[in-house]
């Protein structure tokens, strides 16, 4: 009875329907996410008691000025950007052929198997995968064993290790949107291109790539932003490498300097905002 009464009451009131539907998620996004983030960023302008590490509400721009003027943060920002870009490029280079094969070449049965294969690593914990890479990269690991007969050796723990590990971790997030993008390219366009005398390469560059560009950009957002904030992989396979994420982590965990950590977090947030703005101009956000 009650539920019937509620639905009769709500039926003509469209706005109320919408309001009751959206209140909870909007509150969640607004309060829990944006307000919490803003509260964190505000602490960048506070100070910290040097012995006890307790945050004190005394306004200062010292932390932010320090982050934007000291050489350490410039070096680490450039290194992090470089890693994120490299990881994104590697992932796209691997994902495009794989996604093309899945969408256009493979039989339906094989395609389903490949989708499962691509998504399967996501079922394993992030930590398990990173520790697996630690074992792989180790000097008595699989990479060393496979490369040593050819005079090679493992890159060990460091920049290369971080790039390899992150590229592996984010690959499914890049393959899936690009696969969806290829799937949306009608086969008859490829045939038409061939009928008009275009070779494979020409078809790829003039017909396929313009159509899947938004999908590639969508995939790059995942690889780029996830790499930009990562600190756990860096701690485990990065050797002595520092990234923006580890600087934030060390300032919270080791230095007990939350204001400085908040000030550092302005850097990746700024980079991501610029990146998203650039992406928005390409129109790729609509295909996410």
């Amino acid at each position, binding site marked *: 009875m009650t539920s019937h009464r509620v639905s009769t009451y709500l039926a003509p009131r469209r706005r109320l329907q919408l309001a009751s539907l959206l209140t909870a998620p909007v509150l969640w996004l607004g309060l829990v996410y944006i307000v919490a983030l803003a509260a964190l960023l505000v602490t960048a302008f506070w100070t910290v008691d040097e012995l006890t590490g307790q945050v004190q509400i005394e306004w200062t721009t010292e932390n932010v000025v320090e982050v934007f003027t000291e050489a350490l943060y410039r070096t680490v920002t450039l290194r992090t950007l470089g890693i994120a870009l490299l990881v994104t490029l590697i992932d796209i280079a691997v994902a495009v052929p794989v996604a093309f094969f899945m969408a256009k070449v493979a039989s339906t049965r094989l395609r389903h198997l490949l989708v499962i294969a691509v998504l399967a690593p996501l079922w394993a914990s992030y930590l398990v995968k990173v520790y697996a890479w630690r074992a792989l990269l180790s000097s008595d690991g699989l990479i060393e064993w496979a490369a040593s007969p050819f005079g090679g050796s493992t890159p060990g723990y460091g920049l290369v290790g971080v790039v390899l590990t992150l590229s592996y971790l984010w690959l499914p997030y890049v393959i899936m949107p690009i696969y969806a993008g290829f799937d949306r390219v009608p086969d008859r366009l490829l045939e038409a291109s061939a009928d008009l005398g275009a070779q494979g390469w020409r078809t790829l560059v003039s017909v396929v790539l313009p159509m899947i560009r938004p999908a590639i950009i969508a995939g790059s957002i995942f690889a780029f932003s996830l790499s930009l904030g990562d600190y756990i992989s860096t701690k485990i396979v990065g050797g002595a490498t*520092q990234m923006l994420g580890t600087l934030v982590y060390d300032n919270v*965990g080791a230095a007990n300097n939350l204001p400085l950590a908040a000030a550092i977090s302005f850097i990746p947030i700024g980079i991501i905002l610029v990146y998203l703005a650039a992406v928005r101009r390409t129109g790729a956000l609509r295909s996410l």
Partner: protein
Amino acid sequence: MSKSPSRTALRAGLAATAVVSLAACGTSSSDGGSEAAASLGATEGSVSILAWPGYVEDGSNDASVDWVSGFEEATGCMVDAKTYGTSDEAYQLMQSGGYDVVAASGDLTLRLIAADLVAPVNTDLLESYDGIFDFLKDKEWNSVDGVSYGVPHGYGANLLMFNTDEVTPAPTSWDVVFDKASDYSGKVTAYDSPIYIADAAVYLMTHSPELGIENPYALDEDQFAAAVDLLKTQNASIGEYWSDYLLEIQAFESGDSVVGTTWQVIQNSISSGNTDVVLPDEGATGWSDTWMIASESEATNCAYAWLDYIASPEVNAQATAYFGEAPSSEAACDFRDDCEAYHAGDEDYASQIWYWTTPVSDCVDGREDVECVDYSEWTKAWQEIKG
């Protein structure tokens, strides 16, 4: 194992009949400081402990290494333990709350006391306290103005670990990780905490006497800059910095690290058999640890029971032997056969180790004409060293 648990049980039983009056709540008292418990009551059923790896063993790492079960049986306090890798990490965890007891080194204790995160400890309530070496009691790292904030646990030195296949002859000096580090480039490891700057300072005390370093935790601008420069040079040879002791064990077992600073417990845990440890000629930094009780603890009786239990000779002997450090009492040596190796009770030897201390601007070596570099500068410099 039988003697101390039964004693503790007896005491807990007696205490249960006593009046429960605890004043361990720090935030409400007018002076802002916490007060020690005046007497004990019934145990609460569980206690949450934050400690260095190897301090709270319940047999899950090694079936023969277990002193937690005896405590749980004797007191009914179920132990929930968490380990940490650096004092800074422990400080952060203590700030987040939820722990009743913490094992803190000297570079952590004063910070905990200053932030009112730990309460004074009424040592009269602890039966085991009397037997503890006098030279460990009421020190600047475990008491303030004569008020004790905890029970000494053990002390030892940060050692130099090396791979016996790769590093020959066996080193006797820290120079293998400093001036000669490039011989092992990419395979040198160092402790990932700002306090490691003191290790460089200890090295400079011997090798650059003109700097006049008297105490590695009291560095003026010039001395500090020299230590930082040494570490920046070392950075080029570092394979990885460690703070997770399990990662260091794995790195030495696989040969990814061949030389670097370590703890005895890590050497004890390495199964590959091609590593050894040495206390180099320059001396070393080290630790003297204290069991403390959180000011916000709601399990004070279990916390006191733990402090008493872990300081009792047999248990203290087990725990300190497992970690590889000197015990806190003469009686504990009756349960260990390696006390001499750790110079337990040897006051002169104990004074040769530079125990971790929080660097503050009032130089701890007593100099008054200069200001020393404080710990917040150490943490900034540490990030610059890592680059």
